[in-house]
């Protein structure tokens, strides 16, 4: 552990899942060759897009909610230290214990120690991005502790010895017959007559996990929100596995990024509307649990875990906060709407991004958590079409942050007097996104960022890569206002 010198500290190498094994263009090219994968992803994103659009249209105050969400999160980050200290006080008053983890290694050590202190060797887990980010399951396994993922998709991923490919529906790259095969092969005690009917598959998971839920004494979760003013932790879910993990064990350990705070209980009224509609396209997800420390009911009887531990995780978040343009990415509520509208994600799927955070949000979050040199190709994994901004419930300007990170990368390369990296060159060619001249022309026309760069003169002389390969040879007129998404919808006949 280094001592603090005032410089931003990124997520350490060698632990967790924020870095891929290969640069985005190479991984993307392989993914593009996989037709089954592309078909599954295309179907999933189109379905969720349509559901989201329908429930968003039901609210006539959607834009006001987005503006409120953006403002609340932005203000929270500017007082993050005060809010965190308040959260710690409240959780402690309510009988919980708060732990602080500078990075993935420290968080893994804390959780491992807490589980060991219970004497247990098995834990049940509810889907959590933070614990995937830090590679908690692997750390526990090294300590001889088995972690059972209980979200159906996570279970499919875990039993398939696979990686998640989408934040919301992590097993979306698998179809029903693949899932059936995985269950038949890996699930102890499964009915050999199991069919590939989704209901039968879900019931097989119910039977398999119920034994675990009823007997396992330690639960591990993430959190969607924590309310600083009241010390209330909030988890949204659909299947009831979250309630099982949060309620039945004797010990509950929650790992949460330090950016997941909201200051007041009232603030939640905004996010409990924005998140479900943006995420699963539901008015409200089936279950939301809110709890504090260890609960005792009015008659003195206990309710839920006796021991509650909250682990607050930095792992590159303070480094992200240090960047005035990039810090807005910490406002993300992990809804995955930006993925579902992204033409690049739709074609490559989540694995190509290397990190547990795929899609547009991953392209701006992972490089900031790790330092841009460790994820140098991700800021180029976009056509800057702006669909992600339009979909984002907290109005994160992902295209601008992408451009900002590209500039940072190019600056670093210049300072180091290096030639452009292979990924910058590959992305400049960008044959995989811009595979036809028509598409290419439309993509650059639609670039919101290009509009901004054009300024008052109405001419653009430099564009960030991959478009720089083209604008380098001549000035480009400032593109008209039709966005790539509009063009995409108009030319491909999909609901926008």
């Amino acid at each position, binding site marked *: 552990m280094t001592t603090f010198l005032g410089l931003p500290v990124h997520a350490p190498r060698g632990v967790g899942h924020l870095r891929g094994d290969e640069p985005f263009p190479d991984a993307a090219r392989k993914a593009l060759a996989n037709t089954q994968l592309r078909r599954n992803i295309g179907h999933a994103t189109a379905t969720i897009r349509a559901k989201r659009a329908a429930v968003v249209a039901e609210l006539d105050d959607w834009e006001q909610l987005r503006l409120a969400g953006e403002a609340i999160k932005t203000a929270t980050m500017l007082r993050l230290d005060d809010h965190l200290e308040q959260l710690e006080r409240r959780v402690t008053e309510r009988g919980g214990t708060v732990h602080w983890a500078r990075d993935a290694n420290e968080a893994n050590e804390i959780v491992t120690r807490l589980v060991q202190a219970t004497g247990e060797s098995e834990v049940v887990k509810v889907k959590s991005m933070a614990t995937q980010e830090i590679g908690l399951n692997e750390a526990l396994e090294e300590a001889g502790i088995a972690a059972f993922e209980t979200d159906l998709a996570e279970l499919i991923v875990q039993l398939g010895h696979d990686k998640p490919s989408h934040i919301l529906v992590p097993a979306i790259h698998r179809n029903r017959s693949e899932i059936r095969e995985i269950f038949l092969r890996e699930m102890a005690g499964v009915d050999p007559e199991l069919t590939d009917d989704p209901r039968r598959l879900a019931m097989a998971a119910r039977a398999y996990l119920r034994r675990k839920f009823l007997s396992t004494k330690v639960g591990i979760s993430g959190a969607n929100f924590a309310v600083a003013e009241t010390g209330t932790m909030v988890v949204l879910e659909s299947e009831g596995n979250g309630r099982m993990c949060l309620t039945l064990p004797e010990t509950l350990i929650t790992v949460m990024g330090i950016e997941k705070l909201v200051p007041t209980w009232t603030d939640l009224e905004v996010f409990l509307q924005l998140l479900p509609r943006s995420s699963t396209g539901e008015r409200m997800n089936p279950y939301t649990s809110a709890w504090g420390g260890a609960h005792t009911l009015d008659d003195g009887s206990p309710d839920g875990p006796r*021991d509650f531990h909250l682990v607050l995780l930095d792992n590159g978040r303070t480094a992200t906060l240090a960047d005035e343009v990039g810090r807005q990415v910490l406002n993300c509520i992990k809804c995955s709407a930006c993925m579902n509208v992204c033409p690049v994600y739709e074609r490559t799927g989540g694995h190509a991004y290397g990190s547990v955070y795929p899609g547009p949000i991953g392209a701006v979050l992972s490089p900031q958590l790790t330092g841009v040199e460790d994820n140098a190709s991700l800021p180029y994994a976009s056509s800057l079409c702006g669909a992600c901004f339009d979909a984002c419930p907290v109005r994160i300007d992902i295209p601008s942050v992408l451009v900002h990170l590209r500039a940072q990368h190019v600056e670093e390369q210049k300072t180091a007097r290096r030639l452009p990296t292979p990924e910058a060159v590959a992305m400049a060619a960008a044959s995989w996104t811009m595979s036809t001249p028509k598409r290419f022309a439309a993509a650059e026309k639609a670039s919101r960022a290009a509009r901004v760069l054009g300024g008052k003169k109405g001419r653009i002389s430099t564009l960030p890569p991959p478009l720089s390969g083209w604008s380098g040879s001549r000035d480009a007129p400032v593109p008209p206002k039709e966005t790539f998404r509009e063009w995409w919808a108009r030319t491909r006949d999909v609901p926008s």
Partner: protein
Amino acid sequence: MSATGSTDAAKEEILQRIRSALGSRPAAEPAPRDYRRAGAEAPGSSALLDLFEDRLVDYKATVHRTTSDHVGDTVRSVIATLLPQGGSVLAASALPDEWLPEVTRDTGFTARELDQFAGVVTACAAAAAQTGTIVLDGSPDQGRRAITLVPDLHVCVVRAEQVVETVPELLSRLDPTRPLTFISGPSATSDIELQRVEGVHGPRTLAVVLVTP
């Protein structure tokens, strides 16, 4: 377990990193709150109850209307319909006696014991029509969280005046220091090819008994 020396050092360092990241700290703009907070309809109005029912049914819950002097009979008939094979039923420890005096009250059963019950009956703390959401807060007529989680059928009695229109109105009626469970339809998954399957780990059936005075 108390905070250890190492996490104290970690806390100081993280707070220090935040302060240094924020530098001179620009003042934050107050958040605009011009979204809809109050609903157009009064709590418990018949338009709201219709909306609430519509939303619940859309998410595959069943809704059974009754009046305050027929709650017990309605719950009995719901249970008879939804548990045709029979099976034992549990109630929150202080469910009103006049509702279902014959049903076993929760006395702190273990999770495995709860698994032997086919159904559970509770009241609720508040509900929102716009999203079809019911909230339980651990009050004696609702019980601890486990009892509405392990049995396969949850019959929830909602009184008309508990139904508000919007999510902001719902939250303003709740006490955030209590253990809260927000329920919007039975559990569901869409993890396999996006095909929705109702009823995974929580109760696979949610029946709402909606009581008008």
